[in-house]
């Protein structure tokens, strides 16, 4: 195989892997925005805390512990965190005027609290957890790390489960109903407050799992959630506000772009290139790729 073909293919594979994880985080953000119409500025903190939870479990039970167990413990923990968060920080303010802005402010303050708590509890030094699997596998002439492969599979699995949930279950459809017309949802008897809570719980789980999946490669630090958060921001805007499938597509596109930029230029240029791509797309499609929003 030509070396340059090899390079492109491995870039693509990296891009798909990172894209799948970005899709998780972005979906979480898109879900919250779609359902509650507000951006959760503490989303990045959930990413960080997911990773820290995993690290703590590992410290307590030893490095040999299976990731399955970690997920089994962390998922409910994250879900409760997200749900409680909604109850304390978001819900009481829904009755105020300008509540959308106010919720943005309170989630921002919460991010500060969560990040600083992480700093105080875990210290400023970066931490890491071992990858899910070691070793590589050969597909044709290309070597792919098994860890990357499993990350991709796990992420796709979760996305598929989420899609199934939203489309085929009653509560999932109710969630979509709340996203599409809040008043309509209320008058058919959907308790939209509860749905808000679910959406934040689910988004916390998505962000946290993404944090765990990326932790072996990118390390865990108290403020480490901001870059993924900013990236998911851009992804959601590119995909189009209010579109879940837009968020997933945009995540993969930008993931591949990132992998290519890292491969051919340097890591430093990823964000500027992303911004430029976003700007260009917004000029031609101001609502984003699949945007259905005003």
């Amino acid at each position: 195989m030509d070396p340059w073909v090899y390079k492109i293919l491995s870039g693509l594979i990296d891009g798909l892997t990172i894209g799948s994880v970005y899709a998780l985080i972005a979906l979480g953000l898109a879900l919250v925005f779609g359902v509650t119409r507000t951006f959760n500025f503490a989303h990045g903190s959930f990413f960080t805390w997911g990773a820290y939870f995993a690290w703590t479990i590992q410290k307590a039970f030893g490095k040999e512990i299976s990731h399955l167990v970690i997920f089994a413990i962390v998922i409910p923990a994250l879900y409760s965190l997200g749900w409680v968060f909604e109850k304390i920080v978001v819900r009481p303010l829904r009755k105020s005027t300008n509540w959308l802005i106010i919720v943005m402010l309170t989630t921002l303050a919460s991010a500060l609290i969560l990040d600083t708590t992480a700093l105080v509890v875990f210290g400023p030094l970066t931490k890491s957890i071992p990858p899910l699997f070691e070793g590589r596998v050969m597909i044709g002439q290309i070597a792919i790390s098994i860890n990357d492969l499993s990350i991709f599979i796990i992420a796709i699995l979760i996305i598929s489960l989420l899609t199934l949930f939203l489309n085929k279950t009653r509560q999932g459809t109710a969630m979509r109903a709340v996203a599409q017309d809040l008043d309509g949802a209320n008058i058919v008897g959907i308790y939209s407050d509860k749905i808000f809570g679910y959406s934040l719980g689910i988004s916390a789980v998505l962000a946290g799992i993404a944090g765990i999946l990326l932790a072996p490669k990118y390390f865990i630090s108290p403020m480490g959630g901001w870059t993924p958060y900013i990236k998911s921001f851009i992804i959601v805007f590119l995909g189009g506000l209010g579109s879940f499938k837009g968020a997933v597509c945009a995540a993969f596109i930008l993931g591949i772009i990132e992998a290519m930029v890292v491969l051919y230029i340097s890591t430093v240029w990823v964000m500027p290139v992303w911004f430029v791509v976003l700007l260009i797309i917004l000029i031609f499609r101001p609502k984003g790729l699949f945007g259905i929003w005003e």
Partner: protein
Amino acid sequence: MLKVDNINFSYGEVPILSNVSIEVGDGMFVLIIGPNGHGKSTLLKTICGLQNPQSGAIVYNNHEIDNLPVQKIVEMGLVYIAEDRHLFPDMSVIDNLMMGAYNKNARLKEKENLYFVFDLFPKLKLLKKNVASSLSGGEARMLAIGRGLMSNPEFLAIDEPSLGLAPNLRVEVFKKIDDIKQKGASILLVEQSTAIAAEYADIIYVLEDGKIVFSGTREEAFDNQNIREVFLGT
């Protein structure tokens, strides 16, 4: 069945409803008419739990509902069909209808009610896979009423169902509503285009400036010259 007793509602400092009292008996069709912007929609919204009155009581089937959230009121069988319809734009007709059956009492009667809705509105059955945002005004209106029926109502509060519809469609909508009433539901209707609606009403209230200025049977309303000219257009 429904008794509204002296309710007051203000939006901030602005009073919208002042000492409004109305009554809807079992199986009755009650019509509320009056000039636009004088509180008709607000009255319905307050009864249905989307807003709470500042004072007064609302009693439905011997339960006080003035402080309950709309979801609880729907569970009790009092269903609101909004003027703005509030359909789920990206969901299909059938999905919209199934969402109508969300509340726990409606879920048990899902199949029955769906059958009834399709019987009443055959067009909806044809369009069942179509996305709600692609429906015409009349079809959307039918879907809104159909969705409301899926909530298993004993009492329907409908806000201006004929708004924006062509005259022949208007007649049809009111006929359908009367059909629903014949099945045993109580109807509280708010309307602007009143001549047609009045034909089916048992009791008529006139709401002006947030106050009830007339209440009486259909015959009494038609006998009253003022009402006849101003609101009933004859």
